[in-house]
């Protein structure tokens, strides 16, 4: 059994990974709640968010507003805006029209859309095939806490991630739009009868979800220092799995699911012999077990309104 500080470090690693998965999973669960669809191109939206942030930062750098908090804040805002709009466009073009047909259609459509997004970045971004360096704008350096290396970056990422989740929670539970989203998730027809504009609500949901993915993408770029056009492929499947473990439609469930998935991957790589080769096998096997024995998820599905 490895020493305690190693275990703690691994737990911390899992937490960081989990935070990013959680942000993607929340988007998934929101889309499912509102439209009853699994939006598979969400992983590639996450990638798009990272690249949008990268482009904005490159532009700011060229304009001379290089480093520091200002550039970072601008990049976040711009990326959320751009990615949110792209998400809405994707929904209008591809997801809503098929929402009423079988889940199969939406699945294939969104997967193909993801392919289109991915290939577009590959083709149209200069030298898209190569991994790209992401500017390290968070404060560098760190300290040791009980043998665990904690960097200021990690704290910043955790903080930003936490803020994002709090923001989503506030939007969902404290605003009119949030109430509308919850209403549509519960019963679209009744909601419409109460005066909720269905189209606008769905648009808003996709904007929020995609914006969250953009945040996740930027955080990923900051954390790993690089972005690659294929970084979204597994994001879709993992996001879906995490949302499902937590309970489809339940925002808090998605967060729990995302953290759980991250911890699962890290723990299997850390503790099982040859674990790093089989980390995904373990994670997906657990997902399968969950779906067999507790399909409604850890926190129960489709109860966006209350936890």
């Amino acid at each position: 059994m490895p020493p305690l500080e190693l275990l703690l470090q691994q737990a911390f690693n899992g937490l960081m990974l989990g935070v990013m998965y959680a942000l993607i999973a929340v988007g998934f669960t929101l889309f499912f709640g509102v439209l009853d669809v699994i939006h598979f191109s969400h992983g590639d939206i996450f990638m798009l968010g990272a690249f949008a942030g990268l482009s904005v930062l490159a532009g700011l750098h060229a304009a001379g507003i290089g480093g520091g908090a200002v550039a970072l804040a601008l990049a976040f805002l711009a990326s959320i805006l751009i990615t949110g709009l792209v998400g809405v466009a994707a929904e209008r073009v591809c997801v809503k029209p098929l929402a009423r047909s079988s889940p199969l259609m939406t699945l294939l459509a969104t997967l193909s859309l993801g392919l289109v997004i991915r290939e577009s970045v590959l083709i149209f971004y200069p030298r898209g095939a190569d991994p790209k360096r992401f500017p390290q704008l968070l404060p560098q350096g760190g300290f040791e806490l009980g043998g665990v290396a904690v960097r200021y970056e990690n704290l910043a990422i955790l903080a930003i991630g936490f803020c994002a989740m709090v923001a989503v929670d506030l939007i969902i539970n404290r605003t009119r739009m949030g109430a509308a989203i919850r209403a549509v998730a519960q019963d679209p027809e009744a909601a419409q009868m109460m005066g909720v504009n269905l189209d606008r609500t769905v648009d808003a949901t996709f904007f929020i979800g995609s914006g969250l993915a953009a945040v996740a993408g930027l955080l990923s770029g900051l954390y790993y220092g690089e972005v690659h056009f294929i970084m979204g492929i597994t994001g879709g499947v993992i996001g879906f799995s995490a949302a499902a473990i937590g309970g489809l439609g339940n925002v808090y469930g998605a967060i729990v699911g995302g953290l759980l998935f991250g911890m699962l991957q890290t723990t299997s790589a850390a503790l099982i012999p040859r674990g790093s080769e089989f980390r995904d096998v373990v994670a997906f096997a657990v997902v399968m077990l969950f779906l067999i024995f507790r399909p409604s998820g850890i926190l129960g599905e489709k109860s966006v309104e209350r936890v």
Partner: protein
Amino acid sequence: MLLVLLTESALFVLIAAAVLAERPVALAATGAAILAGLAATRFVTPLRTALGRAFERHHATALVGGAAGALALPLALSASPYWTFVATLALLYVTIGQGLNFQIGTAGVLNLAGAAFAGLGGYTVGLLTVSAGWPSWLAVLVGPLVAVTVGAVLFVPILKTRGHYLALVTIAFVFIFNILMNNLEFTGGPQGIKNIPTLQLAGYPFTTKPTVFGIGLPAHANFYYAALLMAALTTWIIRRLYDSWLGLALNTLRDDEIAAKCCGISITRGKLVAFSIGNFFIGLGGAFYAVMVGFVSPPDFDFGYSLVMLSVIIIGGVDSIPGVILGACLLVPLPERFRFLHEYRLLLYGVVIVVMLLYRPQGLWPAKVRRYR
């Protein structure tokens, strides 16, 4: 009758030309001809009704003509082993597609692990022939059985779950299968299993180059004819099942589970049967692929291929048996033909699928409502 035969011959010539044209002039001419033909049949109403009526009345002739065309295709492709290979691959996808369609279209059992079941068939063949020395033809028959068994064992507890969750479980299974095949030693690791011996029937090895009507054909033509036979048999079996009481029960199960239960249909048993039958044919396709290509490796059976199989049945038309054939014959050769697009190829593929789903979700050859006389 003549109209039917004329149309079929014209199609045959166009297909051969589309596949083999190399020079830009020939390519452009063929492209133009195909577009003109499509436009004419779609928009020139008298032509459309005439064709429709002709094919309906002379059903048998149409089938025979189609069969003749399919048999004669290798002759037209005799100069190109590569295109014979692609044509055989298309036929394999017909077999796999019929199996998958039976699960998804007819019974409503969402199976996204098609690649894993094909992989089970293929890897079984590889392991039996290379490690255990079994003859290829026997291994090809056992491969699908392994796929069926694994499917049955693994999914009995899950078949009660709803569409989305079943889809996720099957996706998870594909990933697990892929990683296991890649990382376990006995499956050959990332290299897979090589040197799978080719098929030998009654002493005739499939690597000999056959001669038909005096024209020498590439060795792949043997596999083409075998695949043609396999696809024809599969389609026939699936058709019989569809028309039978089982098919009706599965359709009912798909459309309304409660109503089906009220009629005394066992949901679990129905889904399991559909799942197993489908997996048999999917596994068969994978097993055949193994002996045809001679090696299996993990990237051959990853999630991407599950999606291709899915596209085949959706583009053709869900629950439509002729749709599967059309879907496979379009979706397999076309990306090959468009290789000259290089990196734009995948982008175009994605766009086409999305457009198809938005504007023709019922597929190119939609399933017809059941007729009761």
